[in-house]
């Protein structure tokens, strides 16, 4: 097998445009306009197509391209962008997102000015500009922030929990979301909104009545803080990782929601004990995991599992996988341990 060589550092971290698209395209009723050559839209559509099929989703997002060609590069593409926004608005979506690419940034098109011309529908400009705007993570954060900024006044009725910043390109995205939902249901809490996964634009004001925001990962803390300032909503900094981490997640969520979490924690602890008993055959095995060495959340998880299952972690042990992102909750650990057993006994 040949591995494609990749450089290290931020060069590796992907395109800002893809990061923003992974958010904007999760509005089922929106249109996203990509201001750039058709290749940028095609590359991303192909990625979403593959992701949709892996997640058994049969509806692709609406991605419009301004289809910039050689003359557009020479004479500017602002006219094409205006035309694309007009065409998108004609479809009567509740919102049009406009994302720029590195080539239009290079030729100096003023995408923001075209977007603010007073269109019949809300036009939300998310400055991305491909690699000129940063990396995948920057586009992802910028899109979430731009969308959160559109939430307006809080919606009606009692709120629930909002999942913030799900990784929509992740193979296990729904499995991870489902595990958080399962854990919250032990407390009697429900997920009211997924910002942003499979959303309709009209439900965005529900963000304002959220009682608890659960961030996908600690990296999203600035958005958690901003939402706290705007709507007074507390947040948990990440999905639960590890056995103890899952119990702690339940306890913290219960405290924020004003619910007694003791019963939920006890039940989940029983689930964990029962689950671990299924892997008793691994006891005494020698395992090794590159990311399990040293400090960090990954290492802590490997050490925790080694301790409860009586595994020996050393460099000459069987190589076991540790996915990135780390498995979520008790269910994630169960799935991970299936893979470890396959590696150990394989």
């Amino acid at each position: 097998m040949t591995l494609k060589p990749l450089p290290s550092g931020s060069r590796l971290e992907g395109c800002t445009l893809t990061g923003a698209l992974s958010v904007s395209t999760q509005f089922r009723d929106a249109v996203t306009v990509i201001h750039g050559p058709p290749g940028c839209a095609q590359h991303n559509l192909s990625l979403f197509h593959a992701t949709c099929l892996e997640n058994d989703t049969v509806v692709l997002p609406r991605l419009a391209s301004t289809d910039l060609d050689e003359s557009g590069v020479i004479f500017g593409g602002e006219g094409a962008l205006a035309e694309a926004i007009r065409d998108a608005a004609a479809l009567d979506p509740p919102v049009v997102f406009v994302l720029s690419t590195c080539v239009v940034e290079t030729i100096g098109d003023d995408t923001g000015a075209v977007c603010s011309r007073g269109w019949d529908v809300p036009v939300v400009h998310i400055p991305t500009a491909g690699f000129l705007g940063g990396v995948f993570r920057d586009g992802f954060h910028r899109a979430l922030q731009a969308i959160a900024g559109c939430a307006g006044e809080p919606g009606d009725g009692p709120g629930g929990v909002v999942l913030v910043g799900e990784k929509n390109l992740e193979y296990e995205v729904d499995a991870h979301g489902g595990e958080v939902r399962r854990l919250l249901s032990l407390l009697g809490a429900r997920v009211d909104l997924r910002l942003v996964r499979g959303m309709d634009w009209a439900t965005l004001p529900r963000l304002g009545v959220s009682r608890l925001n659960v961030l996908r990962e600690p990296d999203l803390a600035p958005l958690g803080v901003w939402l706290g300032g705007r709507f007074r909503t507390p947040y948990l900094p990440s999905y639960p990782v590890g056995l103890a981490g899952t119990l702690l997640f339940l306890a913290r969520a219960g405290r924020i929601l004003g619910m007694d979490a003791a019963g939920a924690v006890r039940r989940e602890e029983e689930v964990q004990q029962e689950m671990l008993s299924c892997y008793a055959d691994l006891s005494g095995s020698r395992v090794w995991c590159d990311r399990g060495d040293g400090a960090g959340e990954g290492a802590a998880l490997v050490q925790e599992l080694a301790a409860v299952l009586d595994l020996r972690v050393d460099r000459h042990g069987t190589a076991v996988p540790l996915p990135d992102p780390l498995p979520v909750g008790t269910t994630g650990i169960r799935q991970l341990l299936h893979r470890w057993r396959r590696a150990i006994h394989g």
Partner: protein
Amino acid sequence: MGNCTNPVWPCAMAGAVSCLSGIEDLAVVIHGSSGCYYYPATLMPGELFGTFLQEREVIFGGAARLSEVLQGIPSHYLKIAVVTTCVTAVTGEDPAGVGADRDLLVVDSPGFCGGMEEGYRLAMEALAPAVAPETPGVNLDGIHPADPFSRGNLREAERLLALSGTTPATIFTDTTLDRLGRAAPVSLSVNPDLAGGAGRRIGSLLGLPAVAAAFRALGEECEGCDPGPVLEEVERAEERITHAADKYLRRHDPPTVAIFGMSAPSVYAAEMLATYLDCGIAAIGSRNDPGPSRFRVGKTTSLEEIRAVLDREQPDLVLGSSYERMVHPQGAFVGITLPLRGRIQLRARPLAGVEGALDLMEQVLNACMDRERRSRS
């Protein structure tokens, strides 16, 4: 320039990379952003390099970064192809002046200059393959690594050449730099829509009549080539297809069909279906500029255009990519063009040659029968 919703056909840069990555001793560097790198990297099976440019390199020039990447390329690559992308083409980067100690080939094929076939053509032009009159055998062209049928087409073409007592010469592009420079005088194509390499193209292997015609021509041109065994195989394949199609037609009406893909393979599929199954060809949507055909062929490169055609025609059977399958799940489906996502394909499946024709008809008949069963249950 026009607006286009959900474009489905890869850009020129991806086409150039696909052409070049089939040359074993040629390193391919995508000179641009990581966003431009990742898509071709998911399509091509081999090693690809990238400069992964960042903002400061666009502002101050990417020469130093390119030089750094070139220095890291293993020495077993005899030459390095640098493929420009939209931004490096706009900023006027001149990769030729970088990396003086390595043999460079610059391919200027930014995404905005056209579709995949245009990039493939530009790459082939830059490679400038040449004929060596003394080289025996027959070149094969139209092979490119991004094509899900490339391995199958290559094996089938090699098998047919062996059957006729001939050998393959240079394969465009699954070859080495050395062989690019000494191609045989004649070529056969498995996809005439892609630019040929060197050598006079004397036929195509898309469809049984084309295979027969190509090998008859080869028999006249190439010493030692005996088309007889291939012609016999074509005849037997026709009998088998006729028998299977006839049996299908005893119980079912022929399906109406919509076909999407590159022009030549789509027209080939239409000919097969009209000839053997008496199908009505409701529409052909070509990803590239259509070539001549007795069918009406329109250029269709976006998901919205595809959806419009399928909504209008409501065909029983769709040939195309996984995009068409997604848009029209109620129809029987057979994949004939990239991308074919969501299904596992491990074996080398051909579209061209005798086995390609048999495989196409086998897939079509099975898909139609499965659809009939689904509709009954």
